[in-house]
């Protein structure tokens, strides 16, 4: 019995290769790159999160100390978590809906017009740092567009210091994030809508579908479930990963930490204080937060149109 085991094992490997070899070959080039440039670095970071590591001396193992410090001692991290969750709760669903609604409306147009309208809505994402324009708009002096307009229309008598007032920072960040949100998911929805079988609409009409809303719920949405799931993952990661936007617009640190997110906190420890262990712990916590959100959202999405 014992001697037989390696042989059957080898035989089953051979069988596996015979049945699925071509599939593994197709995956191989990507898998290599994926393991080298994603899996290994991510696992390394997760291991580093259990160490104290300043990038000069060798990391020393500290167990769960980074995590405990984050949750128990780091008040600013708690502000960051609160801000991030609040931010994601608002921008996530709204941006997802926007992506879908606009792609759905654009899909009704003729191909040429559709291409132009897609560009119009995708414009904020196509030019890498176009959001910096919002800095000009909400600039604190009279040269800022918002201040200049408000002054001329007589709503205010002196310029508002938009990024120096706690109550303005957060809404502005949300506005700009929503403005930026028609990105990858939006394009995926546009492409997905094209692939919906047109004869389904014809059949639906016979079955008594009366208006565009019923058409949407009973035919369009169920037909593009894979794209909807894809879009959800994209919008979740985007709405939880706000940092560059906050740093560029609200400054770092922002006034009273009003624009502080989990990722700006990470940025602080990773690039300013060089405490990589602590930074990695933050990344790991963020990772599990997104993972959990994703599982919940995917469960909900499976019910669409069903």
């Amino acid at each position, binding site marked *: 019995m014992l001697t037989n085991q390696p042989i059957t094992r080898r035989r089953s490997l051979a069988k596996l290769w015979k049945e699925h070899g071509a*599939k593994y070959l197709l*995956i191989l080039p990507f898998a290599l790159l994926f393991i080298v440039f994603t899996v290994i670095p991510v696992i390394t970071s997760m291991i580093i999160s259990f160490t104290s590591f300043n990038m000069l001396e060798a990391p020393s193992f500290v167990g769960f100390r980074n995590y405990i410090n984050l949750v128990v001692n780091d008040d600013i991290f708690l502000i960051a978590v609160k801000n991030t969750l609040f931010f994601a709760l608002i921008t996530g669903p709204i941006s997802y809906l926007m992506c879908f609604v606009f792609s759905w409306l654009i899909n009704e147009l003729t191909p040429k017009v559709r291409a132009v309208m897609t560009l119009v809505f995708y414009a904020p994402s196509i030019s890498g740092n176009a959001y910096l324009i919002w800095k000009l708009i909400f600039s604190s002096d009279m040269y800022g567009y918002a201040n200049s307009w408000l002054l001329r229309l007589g709503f205010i008598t002196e310029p508002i210091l938009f990024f120096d007032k706690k109550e303005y920072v957060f809404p502005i960040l949300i506005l700009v994030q929503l403005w930026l949100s028609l990105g990858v998911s939006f394009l995926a929805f546009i492409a997905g809508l094209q692939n919906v079988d047109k004869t389904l609409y014809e059949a639906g009409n016979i079955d008594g579908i009366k208006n565009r809303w019923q058409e949407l719920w009973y035919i369009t949405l169920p037909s593009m479930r894979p794209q909807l799931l894809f879009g959800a993952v994209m919008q979740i990661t985007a709405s939880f990963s706000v940092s560059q936007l906050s740093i560029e617009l609200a400054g770092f640190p922002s006034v009273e930490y009003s624009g502080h997110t989990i990722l700006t906190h990470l940025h602080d420890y990773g690039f300013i204080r060089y405490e990589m262990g602590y930074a990695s712990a933050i990344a790991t916590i963020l990772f599990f937060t997104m993972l959990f959100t994703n599982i919940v959202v995917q469960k909900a999405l499976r019910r669409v149109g069903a």
Partner: protein
Amino acid sequence: MRNVSNIVTSIKRAYISRQFKRRNRSIMGDMSLTFLLGIFGLFSVWPLIFIINNAFKPLNEIFIFPPKLFVMSPTLTNFQDLFIIIGNSWVPMTRYIFNTVFITAIGTVGTVIIGSMAAFPLAKYVFPGAKTMSKLIVYSLMFNGTVTALPNYIIMSKLHMIDTYWALLLPSIGGTLGLFLMMNFMVQVPDALIEAAKIDGANEFTIFWKVMMPLSRSAWITLIILSFQSLWGTTGGGVIFTEKLKPVSYALSQIVNAGIARTGVASAVTLIMLVVPVVVFVISQSNVISTMATTGIKE
């Protein structure tokens, strides 16, 4: 006479197809939705208009108060200034442009082909390891790149990739976004088609190239846009140190960083860097078409 009857039938056909298209649509609904599209479209596109206008503004108009969106006396000075600066560049600008074009072209083609190749079996077959791999790919999208930058750098330097094109190409080709996108579209290709191709004697590679790719055309066109855009804007920061190997966006950002006197030039640079992705975008987008309908395949 035949011509006339041809025209009549084609008009009839057009009318019927128009009727078909307008089914389940009310005029009020159409009007209000178009209105909505217009309002939000303006909100979305105005930075683009701003960038275009700014590039043609003379310096005194850029700093005018109150600020104006539209240019009053358009000029090409910004572009002329830019070309003078470029002419004095130590490494010729053509070299920077070559670097970017090379990286963008190879990177985009690589991303599309290698990503789609892996997406096909993961989307359509059940085999040992497939589920784990798919899950890892989705999860990896959620791990922030900031802290993996350090391990990534160490790996690249161990592989002697630092300061070569590979340092930009390979991580981009191994990116999971493209594969995840392709997987979600390939899932929709009917199994019956793959079975039919197999009965005709096609192997997995033929099926991939002749069945899966044509049928997920709108997906990889979208992927081309995404990949092109990210590679086009790359500055090679942190991995490319030799001046001759640097991408054009790095060279242009150096010009822009030279101070406030370059504000006009900076807006010209922004416009120039934007034109290529926009052209690629519009051409690609008009090719995002219904693949299932043109091939007449239904499950």
